[in-house]
């Protein structure tokens, strides 16, 4: 290596080929496999790093999971038509964190959904009786709902953000509300 210009050019081309294959090839091959996995109505999924520290939600008919944007230890991304529902596990480190969950959710919206702003939060009661906050989202031709519920006996919360185009909002978002309300914390029930 390095002895002549021709040899140098061959190695240079080899390096460029590796870079192109890895950065362009894998994403291209990935697109040939379906990303949407349809879920049977009533499917329950668990979000969290362990059985003790996790939440469960149950989806209704017509929902799919977007595989490449889902990591069951941290977050799920579901789709139904043009509606996207993100369910995220949030690790809490301090007791005061619970009070700041809605304020932090605003930051998460700015990071992940620029242009969407949350309305005034209202209380929400989920399937196992735990209480959290829910609010309307709107902005840039999109609308939706965001909810956050802290686990009763463990330092974590589940954050849910459902977004769709404003035009088809009412009906499509309505079918997402039962999914948000289906949240349970299995460890708390034991």
């Amino acid at each position, binding site marked *: 290596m390095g002895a*002549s*210009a021709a040899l140098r050019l061959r190695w*240079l081309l080899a390096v460029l080929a590796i870079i192109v294959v890895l950065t*362009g090839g894998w994403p291209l091959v990935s697109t040939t496999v379906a990303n949407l996995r349809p879920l049977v109505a009533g499917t329950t999924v668990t979000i969290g790093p362990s059985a003790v520290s996790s939440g469960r939600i149950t989806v209704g008919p017509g929902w799919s999971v977007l595989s490449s944007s889902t990591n069951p230890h941290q977050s*799920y991304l579901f789709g139904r038509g043009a509606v996207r529902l993100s369910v995220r596990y949030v690790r809490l480190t301090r007791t005061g964190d619970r009070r700041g969950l809605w304020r932090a959710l605003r930051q998460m919206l700015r990071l992940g959904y620029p242009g969407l702003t949350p309305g005034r939060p209202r209380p929400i009661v989920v399937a196992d009786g735990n209480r959290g906050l829910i609010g309307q989202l709107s902005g840039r031709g999109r609308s939706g709902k965001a909810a956050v519920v802290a686990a009763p006996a463990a330092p974590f919360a589940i954050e849910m953000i459902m977004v769709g185009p404003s035009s088809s909002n009412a009906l499509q978002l309505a079918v997402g509300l039962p999914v948000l309300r289906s949240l349970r914390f299995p460890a708390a029930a034991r």
Partner: protein
Amino acid sequence: MTEAASITLARITAGIVCAFGATVLAWEFLRYMTVLPGDAAVAIAVELPLLVIGGWAARRLRPVHPPPLIWSAAAIIWGAAAAAGCALLANEGLGGLWARSAGPAFAATWSASLSAPLNEELLKVCGVVMVVLAAPQVIRGPLDGMIVGALTGLGFQAAENVTYGLNAVALHGALDPASAILSSAGYRIEVTGLGSHWAMTAVAGAGVGYVVRRGRSGLPPALACLLAAMAMHALFDAPYVPVLAKVGVNLATVAVFYLVLRHEYMARAHGFLAGQVAAGTLSSSQAADLVSRFCRRRSVQQATSGTKRAAVRAGQQQALEELDIAAA
């Protein structure tokens, strides 16, 4: 094409790939930089001591003399920009493929250990190859390749730590971004840092040095080094293995390999110098002084004028050049 033109082309290409990688990283984390600029600055700032101290230590590990500062910096920049940026795209692609084909649960557990060793080790070792192509005098053998590889891995490690820090903000729901970033950085520098990318790429980089020194016959040991680096990486990302075991195995692997290469290099260097002394080219004290950074510096300082100091430095450079050619 002339030799000089091909070197210039290699340098320009390396610059373009680094700019591309930096753009990918900036685009991916643009929202953090605009929404949480102070916290993003903290994520970057906490990695600077790692780069400075780690870079200094890696260069000190090269016996006799360190690699040139500019090419040490170039290796770090390749790791932090070109390799890290390209790895982001490659890992998203291959990770997505695992998730789509084998399911999100499988991917959550295995995607990192099945994707990163292949993508990241290849992209990082490309940086060592680029240094050979852009500056042929910097890497003459496996020990040089190991040092440049460690620097490339260190740059990658720092950039990856920044991305993990910013991702930790989301994992903690943006409740306390600075705390999430500092906690992530602390873990990745203090706990896993000693067995991370710098160690893996040091091993892979030594392989590039074998090809430089031996030509085609250096390809089998180079491949073995690359596979060893990938195995170290797979272990590092593997689920179910205790963190301290991962770090310990990787650190021990690179340390033993380094000691072997250093011993071989010093044996060849002493052999070369003994020959120079026997031929009367160097005195025995000059030969002893040449392999010591401190003694070379003292010789320069003892020269009585600026002209003499420059002459001593030039003589040392010439002798070190010959030593490197013989010993690397």
